[in-house]
């Protein structure tokens, strides 16, 4: 009951939000929604215990794929969106094969190196990727003669796709035969394998599905910005993604989204401190990892027992 109420409130807020804020903030909200797919799909991968440093580059695969399809083949967004997802999933599938041999730290830096390899391909080959300057003139999304050019229509288009993506990932996360097995692989890989779980298979599924949704996010980003370049998908962006996820926490499905919203607010609030911002974000990342490794969600989990305690004061206290 509470859950349904919360979901209804969230939906209402998301539908009303673009009409009550300035246009600039609608653009921020669009980016926030796109990043929501990125953060949730990243968490999907981390449920198997694999922390990747290549997720943002897989988002870039989706962005480049949709840009190439639109510019070279002239296909519409509705065809290129799923193709961008499948393209990123295919690249993710290839990436994860050598990475399966590693765990933890090796996975982390192995995925970093492979992602850099792909980014270098974009920088190196002017034709068709546009080299360091990237690709420009990516057409806006259209249905018939209607173009999703203004911020508010694009916001609702993004909202619909994001809601569908997040819902699918939520189902995967809760599915007994997929999400729970992924978590089992994380908790004790040897034990999971001893009861017949094909751990590499589930790690591959998680990584590939995560890559698919990163590709969807990339396609949405490319059609909004109209131009993409390799810098959009560099390690700095990846570290920001990690900051969202660490600040929010990964134990629950909603943790990364909490982190994303909070850190986007901090990001916007610190706009005047432009050149000092990485220092602030670096400091926040370190502080969370050391003092609150469970993220904000671990604080929220402490609230209900606290409320309970306040509601029913202990008897001993009263006699004082």
């Amino acid at each position, binding site marked *: 009951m509470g859950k349904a109420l919360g979901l209804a409130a969230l939906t209402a807020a998301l539908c009303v939000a673009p009409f009550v804020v300035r246009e600039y903030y609608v653009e921020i909200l669009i980016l926030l929604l796109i990043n929501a797919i990125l953060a949730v799909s990243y968490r999907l991968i981390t449920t198997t215990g694999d922390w990747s440093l290549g997720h943002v580059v897989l988002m870039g695969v989706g962005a480049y794929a949709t840009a190439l399809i639109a510019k070279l083949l002239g296909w519409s967004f509705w065809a290129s969106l799923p193709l961008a997802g499948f393209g990123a999933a295919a690249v993710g599938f290839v990436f994860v094969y*050598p990475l399966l041999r590693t765990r933890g730290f*090796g996975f982390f830096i*192995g995925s970093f*190196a492979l992602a850099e390899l792909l980014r*270098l391909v974009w920088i190196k080959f002017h034709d068709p990727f546009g080299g360091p300057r990237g690709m420009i003139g990516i057409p806006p999304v259209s249905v018939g003669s209607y173009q999703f050019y203004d911020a508010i229509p694009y916001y609702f288009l993004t909202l619909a796709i994001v809601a569908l993506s997040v819902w699918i990932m939520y189902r995967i996360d809760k599915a007994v035969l997929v999400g729970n097995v992924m978590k089992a692989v994380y908790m004790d890989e040897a034990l999971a394998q001893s009861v017949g779980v094909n751990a590499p298979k589930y790690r591959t599924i998680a990584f590939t599905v995560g890559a698919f949704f990163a590709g969807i996010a990339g396609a949405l980003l490319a059609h909004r910005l109209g131009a993409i370049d390799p810098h959009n998908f560099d390690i700095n962006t990846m570290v920001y993604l990690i900051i969202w996820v660490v600040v929010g926490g990964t134990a629950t499905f909603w943790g990364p989204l909490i982190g994303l919203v909070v850190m986007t607010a901090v990001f916007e609030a610190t706009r005047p401190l432009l050149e000092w911002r990485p220092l602030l974000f670096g400091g926040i*990342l*370190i502080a969370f990892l050391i003092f609150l490794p469970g993220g904000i969600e671990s604080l929220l989990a402490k609230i209900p027992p606290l409320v309970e305690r306040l509601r029913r004061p202990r008897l001993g206290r009263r006699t004082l």
Partner: protein
Amino acid sequence: METATLVQTIANSVVQGSVYATVAVGLALAFGVMQMANFAHGEFFMVGAYVVYVLYALGGVPFPAAVALAFPIVGLLGLATERFIFRPTRDNVLSGFMATAGLAFILQVLVGQTWGVGLMRSIPTPYMGIVEVGDVRLGWQRLIVVPAAGAMMGLLWFFLYRVRLGKGLRACAQDREAAALLGISNNRMAALAMFIAGGFAGVSGALMAPIHAVTPYMGHAIIVTAFVVVIVGGMASIEGAILAAFLLGFIHTFVTTVFDAVVATMVGVAFMAAVLIVKPSGLLGRVKA
């Protein structure tokens, strides 16, 4: 490839391999001793280059002295990183690694805001001139990297195998609990390992400063290669890191000569992926990466 070009490229490869080795050895040492994976290692390299910029180019300190001073200065940075980041996150390798990504941001901003972001710092070349042996031509500034790296490796070997403290480091790397039982403090060994790792990164940055574009973001290029080197060599193995450094030095230099630097990095990463598939523990490593 003509013989002259070939010999020249081999000479360049040895120089490149020496640079990679001095950078990667520190990463391997810190990882081996206490599973400390330092993402800011490239920024330590950058800080070493700025030590030379400030002391030698601005302050007039002799170049060798500035390079030598980079060891304790960046070493202390390593020490602080161990105390304030790696020690509190010791039970989780990844959180230490992610936290040092935050440290990389912090160092870039601090250096950039102090000495400027835009232009690269110009540092006069202390050792002018070119050595010619037959058809091979190498600038002195590049050539001195090789004996310097050799001396550093020699000193490190002496320290690890002949000095009591260094033996303690190796003991800790082999089995930290057993070492602790024998009275070797894990905390002190971790601090020592990070001091040496920082010092090595600092000295390599300092040596490269006159022939490298010195910017707050110069660490990024070196860290990708350094990670590839330690994965290929086998994470915690110093010997593996040195071997892999020279292998990658040869691969990078030859591919750069024939194609260009971007293709060289791609080939290096592809080589790493191949090593992971064939031998996940790396060339000389015992444990999986």
